[in-house]
Structure formats: C-alpha cells, structure tokens
C-alpha cells in the first residue's frame, strides 16, 4: 500500500489540498489506521495551537500609550473647532452676537438718515458723492500700485532705507541691531524647525524602516 507522506497529511489537515487530492487521501484513510493516527496527531496539534489564548496587557494600557501619542488635528479641523467654540451656547450669547452684528447697520442707517435730513441732500446727490469718492480712491490706489510695480520701487525703497540707516548710525548701534537681528532669526528658525521637523524624528526613522 502506498502511504501519503507526513507532509501531505499535514497539508491535508491544514486544508491546503485541492478537492481531488483530498478525496484520494480520505479514501486511503478509511483503510489505513497508521495514516489515520498520523492525521489525528496533526489535528490535535492544530487544535491545541488554535486554542491558545490571547493575553491582555495590564489595565490602563491604552492610557499609557496615549500619553506618548500626539493626536494631530488637521488645520481644517482646528479652524472648525475654533469656530464651534465661538458659536454662543445661551440666549445672552446670541443677544450679544446679534447686537454686535446689528451695530454697523444701526450706525450706518442713523448716519444716512441724518445726512438725508440735511437741507439740499437728496438720495441721488448722496449716491453721486459717494460713488465719485470711491472711484477716485480706487483709481489713485491702482495708479500708485502700477507705478511702484513698473519701477520695482519697493525693493529699491527698502534698500535705500537700509543704506540711510547704515550710513547714519554709529558702529555701536549697528552692532546692537545686528545682534538683535541674529537672535530673532535664530528664534524664528528654531520655531520653524520645532514645528516642521523635530516631532518624533526617532520614531519616523524606525517606522519608515519597517514599512
């Protein structure tokens, strides 16, 4: 009688054989006590292993983990949270918000009513006056902006300002200014580094290594 190898019987118990192979082994097992005993041993091992318990860590494990975890809130979530905090919860809060929102309407309305009550002021003259002032303002701003763009005067102005400051100041003042500038730069760089790169660098390396 040709017996299946022990490996074959292991695969049979594991359920890794296809239907035709399984049928062949099952028909053999009916007549072979030795192979049946081998199969029973494999089954006993599989049952024992699959009934091994999962152990639980001691109570408070989640809290201990969370103490070392930084919950990162995306900017959108933080903004929403801030807005949610600004929404009033009680009647008094809502009254205050309504009053604040109504204030500009009341002031503008009052001003308009006062102006229109003046002799010689009609809605049309008031509209023409406001329109002319606004368009003059816009045109003047646009003109200045385009001129400064054309001459690249902003950078030039800044440079000239620095030149004047340097020429006019004595060396002691310049030294103090330079030191303050250096300190502020270092602080700014540190804040940037601390927020962008420093957070759990060690873990990043380890985890990336694992991925």
């Amino acid at each position, binding site marked *: 009688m040709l017996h299946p190898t022990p*490996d074959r019987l*292991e695969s049979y118990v594991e359920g890794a054989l296809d239907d035709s192979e399984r049928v062949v082994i099952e028909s053999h097992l009916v007549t072979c006590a030795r192979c049946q005993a081998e199969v029973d*041993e*494999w089954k006993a*091992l*599989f049952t*024992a*292993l*699959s*009934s*091994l*318990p*999962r*152990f*639980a*860590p*001691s109570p408070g*494990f*989640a809290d*201990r*983990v*969370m103490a*070392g*975890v*930084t*919950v*990162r*809130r*995306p900017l959108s*979530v*933080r903004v929403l949270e801030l807005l949610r905090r600004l929404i009033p919860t009680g009647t008094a809060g809502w009254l205050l918000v309504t009053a604040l929102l109504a204030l500009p309407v009341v002031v503008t309305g009052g001003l308009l009513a006062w102006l229109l009550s003046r002799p010689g002021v009609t809605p049309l003259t008031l509209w023409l006056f406001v329109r002319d002032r606004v368009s003059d303002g816009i045109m003047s701003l646009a003109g200045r902006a385009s001129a400064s763009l054309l001459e690249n005067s902003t950078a030039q102005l800044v440079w000239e300002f620095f030149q004047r400051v340097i020429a006019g100041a004595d060396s002691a003042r310049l030294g103090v200014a330079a030191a303050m500038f250096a300190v502020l730069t270092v602080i700014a760089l540190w804040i940037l580094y601390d927020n962008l790169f420093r957070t*759990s660098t060690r*873990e*990043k390396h*380890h*985890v*990336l290594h*694992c*991925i």
Partner: protein
Amino acid sequence: MPRGELDYSKLTDQEVVAQARAGRETAYRELIGRYERPVFSIIYRLVRDRELAEDLAQDTFIKVLNALDRYDPKQKFSSWIFKIAHNTAIDRLRKREVDTLSLDGSPNARTADDVEATRIVVASTEESPEEYAASREIGTEIERALARLRPEYRTAIMLWHIEDRPYEEIAEIMEIPLGTVKTFIHRARNELRKHLAHLRA
C-alpha cells in the same frame, strides 16, 4: 455612546485610521482596543517577560499611532502593526541577548522566585473557565513547547494558528519570501510535535 460619536464597531481598520488622522482621539483608542491583545500576546510569547512585553507593546503602539499620517491604506493595518511589533521584540531580543530557549520565566531571572514571578501566565482567555481549566495542562505544555522554538518560528506559528493570517500576509509581516514562511511553519510544527511527543505516551 455620547451624541456625535461614531460607532467604530461598524468601521474597517482603514476607516478608523482615517478618523484618527482627522484628529479624533477616540479613533486612536479604538485601534488600541482592537490590537492590544494580539500585539501584546505576540510580544509576550517572544520575550516571555510580562513587564518587558508591556513596555515593548507600548512602544509598538506609540510608533504606529505617531506615524499614522505615513500609513499607506493599501497595506493592511494589521500587517503594519504586527510587523512593527515583531521587529520591536526581535530587536530587543538581539540587543539583550535573551536566551530564546528559556522554558520558564524571564531569561533575566536570577533566583527561583524571579523565575516563578516571570513565568508566562495566562492573564485571560477567550474560553469559558471550565474549558480553560480542562485544557490548562495541554496549554501549559504547548506554551513550553512553543517557547523552545526559534523566535521567527514562534511568530510565524502564532500568526498562522492564533491570528489566522494567511501565508502571504505572514511573509509581508516578517519580510521574508513566501516559501521561507511555509518552511518555518512546517519545521515549527514538526518541532512542536517532537517536543510534545511525551504526552502521547
């Protein structure tokens, strides 16, 4: 459940991770709840020292949860966390030159009391107390036999038999070829049968 809280039990791991990435602390706790037992069990059976296993399981979760923004949702979350758990325990075993053939208690135990105190203990079981009491003897023998396997064999066996992971996922977790996983598991089972042979007599 408080109003506004999600029912995480209906969400997949990937969906819970997405919630955690959106800044929900409850989602982080859900992930810990889902994996604390599997992760702790694997590490505990590798290092066989409860206190050390707690520390390493804690390290594993902290590493994973602090790196959620780099998690690729195409990968199974379980594979990722098991990989980090396995690597963390193996690194520590190598670093501390732990005697992986130790049968009872922590390899660092110096006295008989230490050995008893650090002997692997079943903290809880998913079986009923009656069933558990009946199987305690074979359970203990199995634990001792398991402890005699190489750590890599132990991880492979635990992932297949306890965590029901397919060979392909075990290969991904342990970063070894599929054929090697099959060989590990086959050899480990044969070794276990050899170590348990005296029970048949």
